[in-house]
């Protein structure tokens, strides 16, 4: 969680643009990754992430701390936006977009190719999981979001999230093993 996050939120709720800017800088990469792994399309992910932050800024006074981080509230907004996106026009999944982003980082060519292949496979496997399992896997294992905040973001109890994350990891492992076995 961001240091003095609640102070920043209060300031943002009072209309301080700079405070919301700090929250945006901290959470943008996390929310973007979450959305990208869900939709597997860079431009769509950028658009949906933008929508999520815009919605958060317009409705920031509705956020009430009650022990949950601002991040969990943002993930909830992003999750709802991706659900709406899938209800509407679902575009063709192109996981290559993810590797393209990774390739843009400063790595050696060989490293890049190897990593990009691994990422493609991993992203494809994640996408084969149930919606809720995808959410929990990304929030808990990619972003290290605390159990309490994950539960709040997905609208489940902490116990239920524990069960889901256990099942999600098991299913993901099986999917990867199956893929390796079948070549």
């Amino acid at each position, binding site marked *: 969680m961001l240091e003095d996050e609640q102070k920043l939120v209060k300031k943002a709720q009072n*209309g301080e643009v700079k405070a*919301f800017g700090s929250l*945006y800088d901290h959470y*943008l990469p996390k929310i973007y*990754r979450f959305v990208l792994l869900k939709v597997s399309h860079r431009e769509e992910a950028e658009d949906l992430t*933008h929508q999520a932050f815009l919605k958060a*800024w317009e409705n920031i006074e509705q956020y009430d701390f009650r022990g949950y981080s601002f991040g969990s509230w943002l993930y909830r907004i992003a999750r709802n936006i991706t659900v709406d996106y899938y209800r509407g026009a679902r575009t063709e999944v192109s996981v290559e977009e993810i590797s393209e982003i990774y390739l843009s980082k400063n790595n050696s060519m060989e490293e890049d190719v190897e990593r990009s292949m691994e990422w493609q496979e991993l992203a494809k496997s994640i996408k084969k999981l149930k919606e809720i399992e995808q959410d929990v896997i990304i929030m808990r294992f990619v972003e290290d979001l605390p159990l309490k905040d994950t539960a709040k973001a997905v609208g489940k109890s902490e116990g239920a999230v524990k069960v889901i994350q256990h099942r999600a990891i098991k299913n993901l492992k099986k999917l990867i093993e199956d893929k390796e076995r079948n070549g």
Partner: protein
Amino acid sequence: MAKDLLKELQSLRDITPRSEYIAQSREHILSTPKSFYVAQSKQFGNGRGIVWESLSLSLSTIMSAAVVLIMLGGATGIMRVIVFNNLTAGVDTEGIIAEAGAASKDIDIQLNEARYYNIPTTKATATLGVVSANVTVDNNSKSSDADRALKEASK
């Protein structure tokens, strides 16, 4: 395998959005003005506390109720004029009053007749008692006593 998988998942953290996108999106969001309603609710929420909020809510409820009552009162008055004017249009009111008067006279006559026949039961019983007591007397005097008793009872 599980450890490798967790490492793999964590490596996805290296994914970052494009810097051009960040700059554009950030500028657009932060330049979006908050709506008037949001600004108002924030002012109430932060500046004056829950007492002011509840007070303003009660005040607005009372005002709304008053407006509704005034509207209903006005509507009733207007409706009364419209409805009664429309209903009585083309009706012979004098004829109706005369007919009602005649009907009430008939009712009065019938009530008088009913009163005439309505001899109180107690008086009738007493009269019958007197009649039955005088049964042993001669037939001529018995009938005259009974007639007298009935006349008294009917007064």
